[in-house]
Structure formats: C-alpha cells, structure tokens
C-alpha cells in the first residue's frame, strides 16, 4: 500500500516490488499511526483485484488501524468520509463497508 524512502513515507506503490526472500515484519503501532495520517491508500485498496472481497479487506484494515488510536470513532468517521467520496458512485459498496467498520 505504500513504502518508505529514507525518512519519507509514500502512500503509493514503490517502483520495484519487494525483494524476494525479504523478511516480513508487523508494523509497530507508531508506524501504523504515521501511515494512517493520510487516507490515500484507500484508493489502492479499493481498486485492487483480489480473491477476497474488497469490502471485507478495507473494513478489516480500517478496524485494525483504528486500534492504535485513542479516539477510534473519530478515526473511523474520518475514514468513512474519505470512502464516501471515493465511492460516490457506488452507494451500496459504501454501505457495506460502513456496516463493517461501525465502531
């Protein structure tokens, strides 16, 4: 969904895919918090074609992220607003996701 180059965090995919056999770590809460300052990644998530339903993925992702925030609800509302704009033409999908991230 994004990458870090030096100190800077980018909310788009890196020019090269990750190295094969690279180690995978869980993000620390601080990193999650830093990354989720911007909701640009939602666009990537919604537009990827995956075997699992996008709605489920987006909702799960946001639920996870919200746990690092003290005010979970405020975070989810802000994310919901972003989704409402992204999914302006598809109200049913928006409704499905909102149903899944309800605080």
């Amino acid at each position: 969904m994004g990458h870090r180059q030096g100190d800077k965090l980018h909310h788009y995919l890196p020019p090269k895919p990750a190295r094969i056999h690279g180690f995978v770590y869980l993000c620390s809460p601080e990193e999650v918090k830093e990354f989720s300052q911007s909701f640009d990644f939602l666009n990537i998530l919604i537009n990827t074609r995956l075997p699992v339903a996008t709605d489920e993925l987006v909702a799960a992702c946001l639920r996870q992220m919200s746990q690092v925030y003290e005010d979970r609800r405020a975070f989810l509302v802000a994310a919901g607003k972003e989704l409402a704009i992204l999914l302006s033409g598809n109200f049913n999908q928006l409704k499905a996701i909102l149903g899944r991230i309800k605080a």
Partner: protein
Amino acid sequence: MNEETKRLGIVTSGSLTKGVEVRLDSSASVEDMAVGRYVTIEGEKQRFFGMITDVSLGVIDQKLTLTPPDVSDPFVAEVLAGTSTYGTIHVSPYLTIGGDVASLLEGAQPVKTVPSHFSTVNLASQRDVELVFGSEDEKRFYIGTPLDMETKVCLDLEELVKRSNGIFGKSGTGKTFLTRLLLIGILQKGTAANLVFDMHSEYGWEGRSEERRKVKALKQLFPSKVAVFTLDEESSRRRRVSTDFVVRIGYDEIEPEDIGLLRQTLNLTEASVQAVYQLYREFGGKRWIEATLELEEGEETKQLLTRLNIHDSTYRNLRRGLETIRRLPFLLPHAPDNPVKHILEYLDQGINVVLEFGRYTDITAYILVANLLTRRIHSQYRERMEKALGEDTAPPHPLVITIEEAHKFLNSEVSSQTIFGTIAREMRKYNVTLLVIDQRPSGIDDEVMSQMGTKITCLLDNDRDIDSVLAGVSGKSELKSVLSRLESRQQALIFGHAVPMPVVIRTREYGSAQSYKEFIPSRETEIKKQAEKDIEELWE
C-alpha cells in the same frame, strides 16, 4: 474555531446575475443557515460581501434518495453528512470590500464580478457588517440590527431625505413603529423638517403597541421640536394631547383639483368632475361650493345648467358629493385662520408638524386635507427654491411629507393629478420629498414606485404587492424569497439609496424607557452642535 470567522464552505458555481452556489462544509449545518444572513467570500484578489438567499440540500448519488441510508445509526449519519449528502446555500454577492484603491477611499463597492472557484465562504463578522453599514454618526441613524447579530445597521439620513421613500407591509407588521423610528431619526439628525399627515393620531403624542401598551411619540420625546396640529380638537382634548393649533379649512380654499382627486371616494362621474371646473369659473374661486349647493330647484337653475352644458343627473351626482364634503365638521364657509401659513411658519423654524385627524379617519377627509395643504406648501417651496436659485441664497430646509394609505393618492388613475404624484416624480429638485406608508403597494402607480429612493418593507404576502415593491431591483427573485419569509413583526427588508445593499433588520427597540433615553441626544452633543453652528455663523 472562533465565532468571528466561522467557515461555512466553498464556492462551487455561479454567475453574477444569479448569484453563487456554496457547498457547505460538513461542520456547518444547513439548519444553522438562514436566508438574509451575511457572508463574506474570500476571493483571490478581493473580498465579497453577500447575503444568503436560498438554502438547499444535495446528494452525491441519486440512489441515496431512493434507498435512504439508516441514519438512526449515528456513525453512518456522521460519515454521510457533508460527503454523500451535503447542504448548499445560494449567496448573492452585493459588494466588494478592500483590495483596490477605490474601495479604500470610498468603502465597499458594488459587485461587478464573482469570486473564483472554491473560494472560501465565511459567516460575516461584526466588523465586516460595520464596515458595510457604517456606525452611528451625525447623519447616520441606527435603525436596527441584522438577523442574528448585534451590529447596528445605519441609514444615511442625509441621502434618504433627498428622495421619496416608502414603508410597506401588511397591517400589523410594524409599519407604524418603523415610521416613528424614521421620523425620530430625521428629527434627531436634523436632516429635514417633517410634515406628517397622521390619519390615526399615533405619531404626535402617543401611540399604542400591539399589546395595547402606550408608547411615546414624537411630541413627548422632543417637545420643543414638534408641534401637533389637529383637525379634531375634541378628540385631541379627550386623549389629553396638548395641541398647538386647530386646523379649520374654508370652502373658499377648495379648488376643482381637490374634487378631482376625490372622484373615487365620492363616487363622482367623469362628467361631474368636468362640471366642477365650469361651476368654478361661473361662480368664482371664493364661493363656488356654497353657490352650487345653494342652487334651488327651479327654472333659473335649469337655465344655468343648460347654459353650462351640465346634465341634470351630473349635477345631482356632483351635489351629492359636495354635500358629503360639507358635512365634514372641520370645514367652515370661511376659515378664521390660514393653516398653511402656520404650518410653514413652524417648518421654517425647524419644528416638525404632525397633523392629527382625530375622529375623521374617513379617507375623504384625509385625501382632501392632505392634498389641499400639500399643494399650497408645495407651491411655496417651489417659489422659495426658485428664488434661492436666482439670488444665490440658501435653499429652503428639506421637507419630508409623510402620508398614509398612499395608494389612494398615488394609484395610476389619480397620481398624475395629485400633488403627491408630482412630488414623488420631481419635487426632489425643490427639496420636498415624500415618505409613503402603505399596505397595498401594488395599488401605487409604477412610475411613482420606480422613483422611490429607499424602500423599507415589512412582511408582504400578496404576490402583486411583492412584485411591485421589488420592481426594478437587481436580484429580485432572491429578494423575493427573503421578503416573503420575514417574520410578521419587527423585521423589515431595506433596500435602495440609503443603504449600500439590501438588508434584513430586526427593528430597533422602541417603547422602553431605555430606548427613549437613547433617542434623545445627550446634552453634550447638543452643546457641541450649537458650538459648531456658532463658529460657522461667526465666519459668515
């Protein structure tokens, strides 16, 4: 966010003629918006000052309107507010503030363009409103406050009295209170002398509010500057009004034009009005009414009428009309005193004259007296103005004549004949203007309406009345929505010459002890004024 600059949203579309659309931020609730409130728009180069003229709701996806979301869930409701569903307001920009040199020198300028896309829209702060409507000073009079604000809206009275003005509104909406305020303003600032034809005797000594509470009127507040004239001494005495003069009018002062005006109220035919002129010529100006009424049935009268080419039925019609006039108790065969002379004497001293009609609230009496007196005052003013022009002396002090039920004088049938029609059209040049009070503005001649400088209108709900009041104003359809939504009391829309842009006000308080105190200028300002006057005279 502080109250001073509350952000509302951004401009999304619009045009100069139709106004701009503003999309509200999710933080601004549609329900807090109200038509008539002021906003500022921060354009790239200039600030725009405008008024909310419409509020509407929008959705991003039409499906939402078909299958409404479950807003009972606060989370969903909060997410959707301002994103999928949003409020829009329609703003009519009226003025630009600041920016170029012209606005720095002359204050706000009329708007000639629209703000660029996505300019920020804020609720106007107290300071902005003050900048636009000025603060109370020597010629500005505080008339009320804008809706939901504490700032004062001031009328430039010097500009106001230069043209004829109108106060309109349904009955019971506060026309009388507004008029009283305006009269006090004119009196307080001394921009003009007032002559009030007070049909219901409520401007001179005291009036009553809707709750039947007594309120002081002009004479009680400014005893030395107001003279109360009365047509009905008895009624004035009963109401314990100290009157300065009792007006009596002689038959010899009534001229054919006066009868022409009364055609409708006296139910006269066109032929009868023509006959009046003939009889006037026949019997002479001094005693034509008496002579006509004294004509007896007989051969002689018949011969006279045949000679004058007056049909018998016409004569009867006219006679009936004249009898009605003769029954008015304040009419005498010969008046002992000349009321016009007295009125002018007072006006010359800068004393305002209120003419009470007492019990004679009948429209015949009102039209007759108002027209008769005004015509003579008008000719006097005309003479003086011409003299002043010729001799290069000071022109006469501006005079404002207040008339009620104006549609009776100024309807399209008679406005070309009455003196009031003439004044409304051209008397500005002679320093005489009208303050017209009416509840059916649609009855007033279009030509007269179009000449009015400033119009103050309370609630009107008849479409024709609204149309005639707003005729020729830019942004008419927007103002229409504002006007028809005024509250039925204490609110008024002002637009025209004396204010930089249309404004909805909550009328200044009138009737409490504190309010009276504020009207009367303090001694210090009086002394200062006098001192300035003395200095001026010293140098003359």
